[in-house]
C-alpha cells in the first residue's frame, strides 16, 4: 500500500470526501470498559449519584421496564429496574420524571460532516487513509451539536478515500450548551476501527487484492516468525499485557479482552510485535498496513463501505479467503439504486452473517419491484441491522427518528428498531459491552423522551452522556 497506489485509487474512485466521526460521546473521564466487574468499576465514594424515575425504560439488553428507576453513579449505570425493587442509595439526587421514557443513547457507526458551512473549514483536513483525526477536527462544527440533539451519544468519523483502508476515529462528547472543548479533549481514539471502501472496478479490485496479499503475507511471516522464534518468546508476550495493565490508567481495559474493544485489540496486537523487534527475522511493519492486518485477524473492528448489492457480489470473492475478517457492511449508495436494493442479495447477506449498516430511509425501488421495506426484510431474514442517520439526505439527521418510525409502520418491531439504533451499531464499533444498553456497568448514556421514543409527537427532552447532561430541550430542565 504505497502512497502512490493510495493516491491513484483515490483518483479513480473520486468518492465524495466522506467524513465520518466515530466517537462515543462520553464524559471527559476515561471511558468505561465493557464487562467490568463491579469492584473494578466501583466509582469513587464521592461520585455523584442520580436516580432517574421514569415511566418506562427501554433497556435493550432486556425487556422494557415500566415505572423504572435508573441509578447513575458517576459516569456509570449502577442499577436499573422497577422502582419497587431498586434500592436508592442514600444521598442520591432524585430526578422524578415519571412521565418520561428512557432509552440508551443512539450510536452512529458512520457519521459525516456535510451540508454546513463548517464543512468548508473541515475540507482542508479531510481524513485520508492513514491520517488521524487528532489535531484536525474543528470542535465548533455544528454536526457535533446536531448529532447530540438527535440523540446520538456515540458517534464515529469515517475517513475519506473509498478503497483506501483508513481508520475510524472516536470522539468525546461535549455538553452542547457549554463552552467549546479543545480538540485534544474531543478526540477520544484515533484508531478505533478500520474503514474500507469498495466500489466495483478494476483498479479498486486490483488495489484491494494487492493490499490483502500484502497483509496476508505479513500475517504469515509473523506466524512463521512466532513459530520459528520459539516458545520462550510466546510466554513473555502473554505476561506482558498483565504487566501493562497496572501501568495503564484504564485498569478495566485488559479484562475486556473478550469483548475486544478497539484499545484492547491494539494492546493485543502490540504483544507479538515488541518481542519481534529484538529478533532478526521480524517482518517489517508498514504502519499503513497494520490496521488491515489487525482487522483480518479479528483484532480490530472493521466497516466495509459498499454502494450496492452489486458491489457486494463483486467484493465477496475478493474477501472470501479472509475467514476471520468480519466487517460490518455499510451501504452508502443512493436509496433508489444503492443500499436498499439489498433485498436482491438476502441469501448472500444471510450466509455472510455480517451486520448491515443502513440508513432508515425507505427505498424507492425500481419499476419491476414493489413496496417492501428492505430494512424490515433484513431483520426478518435474521441479518443484524445497524441504522445510521444519513446526513447527506435533507433532514437525515433531524428526521432520523421519524424515519425509524416509517420502518416501524412497515412492520419493524419497535424493540428491534431501538436495538438497531443502539446495541447493534455499538457492536459494530466493538463497543458493545460499554454502550448501547441501559444495564449495570454500562456508560450512563441515556436519552429521555416525553413519550414513546419513536412516536411522532414525542420530544427528546434530555441527553445524558456519561452521567452528564449535554442537551436539554427546554431551559428549565437545564
Amino acid at each position, binding site marked *: 500500500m504505497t502512497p502512490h497506489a493510495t493516491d491513484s485509487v483515490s483518483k479513480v474512485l473520486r468518492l465524495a470526501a466522506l467524513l465520518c466521526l466515530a466517537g462515543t460521546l462520553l464524559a471527559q473521564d476515561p471511558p468505561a470498559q465493557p464487562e467490568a466487574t463491579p469492584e473494578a468499576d466501583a466509582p469513587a465514594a464521592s461520585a455523584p449519584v442520580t436516580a432517574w424515575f421514569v415511566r418506562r425504560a427501554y433497556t435493550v439488553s432486556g425487556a422494557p421496564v415500566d415505572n423504572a428507576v435508573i441509578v447513575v453513579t458517576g459516569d456509570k449505570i449502577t442499577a436499573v429496574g422497577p422502582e419497587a425493587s431498586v434500592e436508592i442509595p442514600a444521598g442520591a439526587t432524585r430526578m422524578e420524571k415519571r412521565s418520561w421514557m428512557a432509552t440508551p443513547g443512539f450510536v452512529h457507526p458512520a457519521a459525516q460532516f456535510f451540508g454546513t458551512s463548517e464543512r468548508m473549514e473541515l475540507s482542508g483536513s479531510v481524513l485520508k487513509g492513514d491520517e488521524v483525526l487528532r489535531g484536525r477536527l474543528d470542535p465548533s462544527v455544528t454536526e457535533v451539536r446536531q448529532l447530540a440533539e438527535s440523540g446520538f451519544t456515540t458517534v464515529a468519523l469515517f475517513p475519506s478515500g473509498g478503497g483506501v483502508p483508513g481508520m475510524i476515529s472516536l470522539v468525546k462528547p461535549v455538553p452542547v450548551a457549554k463552552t467549546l472543548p479543545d480538540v485534544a479533549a474531543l478526540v477520544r481514539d484515533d484508531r478505533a476501527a478500520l474503514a474500507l471502501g469498495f466500489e466495483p472496478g478494476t483498479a479498486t479490485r486490483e488495489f484491494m487484492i494487492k493490499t490483502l496479499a500484502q497483509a496476508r503475507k505479513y500475517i504469515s511471516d509473523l506466524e512463521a516468525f512466532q513459530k520459528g522464534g520459539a516458545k520462550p518468546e510466546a510466554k513473555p508476550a502473554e505476561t506482558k499485557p498483565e504487566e501493562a495493565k497496572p501501568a495503564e490508567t484504564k485498569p478495566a481495559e485488559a479484562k475486556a479482552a473478550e469483548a475486544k474493544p478497539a484499545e484492547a485489540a491494539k494492546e493485543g496486537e502490540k504483544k507479538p510485535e515488541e518481542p519481534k523487534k529484538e529478533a532478526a527475522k521480524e517482518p517489517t511493519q508498514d504502519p499503513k498496513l497494520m490496521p488491515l492486518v489487525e482487522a483480518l485477524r479479528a483484532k480490530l473492528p472493521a466497516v466495509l463501505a459498499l454502494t450496492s*448489492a452489486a458491489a457486494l457480489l463483486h467484493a465477496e470473492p475478493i474477501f472470501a479467503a479472509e475467514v476471520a475478517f468480519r466487517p460490518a457492511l455499510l451501504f452508502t449508495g443512493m436509496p433508489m439504486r444503492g443500499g436498499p436494493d439489498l433485498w436482491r442479495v438476502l441469501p448472500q447477506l444471510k450466509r455472510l452473517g455480517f451486520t448491515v449498516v443502513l440508513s432508515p430511509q425507505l427505498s424507492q425501488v425500481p419499476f*419491476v419491484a414493489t413496496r417492501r421495506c428492505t430494512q424490515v426484510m433484513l431483520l426478518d431474514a435474521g441479518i443484524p441491522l445497524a441504522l445510521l442517520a444519513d446526513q447527506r439526505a435533507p433532514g437525515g439527521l433531524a428526521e432520523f427518528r421519524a424515519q425509524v418510525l416509517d420502518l416501524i409502520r412497515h412492520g419493524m418491531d419497535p424493540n428491534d428498531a431501538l436495538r438497531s439504533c443502539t446495541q447493534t451499531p455499538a457492536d459494530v464499533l466493538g463497543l458493545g459491552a460499554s454502550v448501547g444498553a441501559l444495564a449495570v456497568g454500562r456508560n450512563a448514556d441515556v436519552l429521555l423522551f416525553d413519550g414513546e421514543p419513536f412516536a411522532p409527537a414525542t420530544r427528546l427532552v434530555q441527553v445524558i452522556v456519561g452521567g452528564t447532561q449535554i442537551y436539554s430541550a427546554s431551559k428549565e430542565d437545564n
Partner: protein
Amino acid sequence: MRTALVLLAALLAWMPLHAQGDVPKPEAKPPETKAVDAKAADAAKPAAPETKLPGKWFALKGATIHTVSGPVLQGATILVKDSKIVDVGQEINIPAGTEVIDATGKHVCPGFVAIAAKGPLGLRNASGKEKGEHRFDPFADFMVLALANGITTAHESGGMADFAGLFGFSGSAFTGSHTGVLGGTVGKLTHGTVEGFALREPAALYLNSPVPQGGGAIAEQRDLFERAKKHRAARKAWLKELAGGKKDAQEPKTDEACTALAEAMDGDIPVFYYADNRRHIEHALGLAAEFGVPVVLHTAQEAWTIPAEVGRHARGVVLLPRGLGVRGTRPYTDPNVSAPHGWRIDNPAIMQRTGVPWAVLTLNTGITTTLLGGRDLMGLHLEAAFAVRGGVTDAEALRAITLTPAELLQVSDRVGSLEVGKDADLLLLDREPLDYRAFVEKAWVNGRLAYDEEVTPLYGHIQTDRRQAPRKWKPWGIWGELPDQKEVVPLPDGSTPAVK
C-alpha cells in the same frame, strides 16, 4: 449414441475429482488428502453414471429445438450439465436425477446475441482499464428487460447509447474514431451473479470512416494501417529472433490501436468499421483489401449496392433490416445521386445470397420505452423478422441474431448455437423465435435460470391465445429468494393474487 453418453458421463464423473488435485490450493494440504481424493476418483470410475450425477443437470424435453448450427429438431431434447450443453437431439439418454422440464409444443433456441448494445450488460462507465467484468451491475433493470426479450449475450462498445441512424450521419454511431479505439465488452447477461460474465474484453477495435471529415483524416487512418502493417512485420521478426535464441531482442512497441490493428490482421481481434453509405463502404473495403484486415462493416445500409465487393473483402456486415428510419445519410430518393443508393428491405437477403455474413442491428441499441421505443434492443428479434420479409428464411434470420453475431464477435466457440460443448444459453419460447407474438418463458445463461416469466412481472400478465390467463405473479421472483410475502401487489385487473 448411448455408449458415447455413458462414456462421456463416466468421464465427467471422474474428471472433476481428478481436476481438483491439479488446482493449486490456497492452503497447502497434506499429501494424504490428495491420496484420498485419488482413491475416491478410482471408486467413482466404475460406478454407473446414472447413480452418480456430479454437477447440476437439467433437460428441456419434447421441444422444437432451433440449433442454428444444424437443423430444426422436432420433439427433441437438450441436456445441460452445469453451464454446458451435454447433448441435443431427438433420441438422447437423460441420466437419472436430471431435472426434466417438459417443453412439448414449445420452442428452444440459443439466446440472442446483440451485436451492438448499450445497457443490457449493466456496465457502469466501464472504459479503458476499468473492465466491465469488474464493475457491471448484475441487477440492472436493463439486463432483465433484455433477457425478457431473449438477449443473453451483448456487445457494448461503451460511450453513449448508439442511435445508429439518428446520430449516424457523421459516421460516429459508436465509440470510435478514424484512428481507432480499442475497447468494449462482450459479456453475458448473468443476472443475479457476477460469475461467467465476460466473453471478450476488450471486445474489438472500432474505426469510424474518415470520409466525412475529409483528407487529413483519411491520411491519418491510412497511416494507422501502414504503421500496423509495419508493427506486425516487426513483431514477427522479433518472435523469430526469440525463437532463434536471441533473448535480448527488443519487443517492438506501438500504441494500443495500432497493436490491435496488427493483431486484427492475423484475425485475432474483431475490427468494427462504421461505414453506412456506399462511399464509406468502398473506402473501408479498399483498406481492408490492401492491408488484409478482415473488417466488419457496421450499419452497412448501402452494402446491397456492391454486394460482391463486400463479400470479397469484409468479414461481415451489421445492418438494420428495417432501415435507418429518421436519419442523416442519403435518402433513396436523393436526386443528386445517380447510382443505386439508400435503404432496401432486401439488403439482408442480398447479403445472404452473396454469402456475406450479416448480423442484425437495432435502430436504437439501448433499451428504452421513449424516443425510439419499439426499435430498441427489446425488438431485436422483430428486426430480424423484417429480414424475412426482405427474402431470407426464418432460419437465416435467426442465425443473424445468434450464431453470426457470435462469429463476428469471435465468441462463437462459446455462444450462438445449440451444440454439445457450448455454453447453455437457452431460451424457452411459446412460439417460433421470430414470431411477433412469441414470449420468452425462461432464459438460461451459463445453465443458470436468469429470467423466468413466471416470477418476473414484465410480460406475464399479457394474455394471448397461447397464454390463457395471467401468470401467477410473484413480484419478487428471481430478485431474491424471499421470506414469506407480506404485502401483495394487485394485478392489473385489480384482483390480488393468492399468497401462499
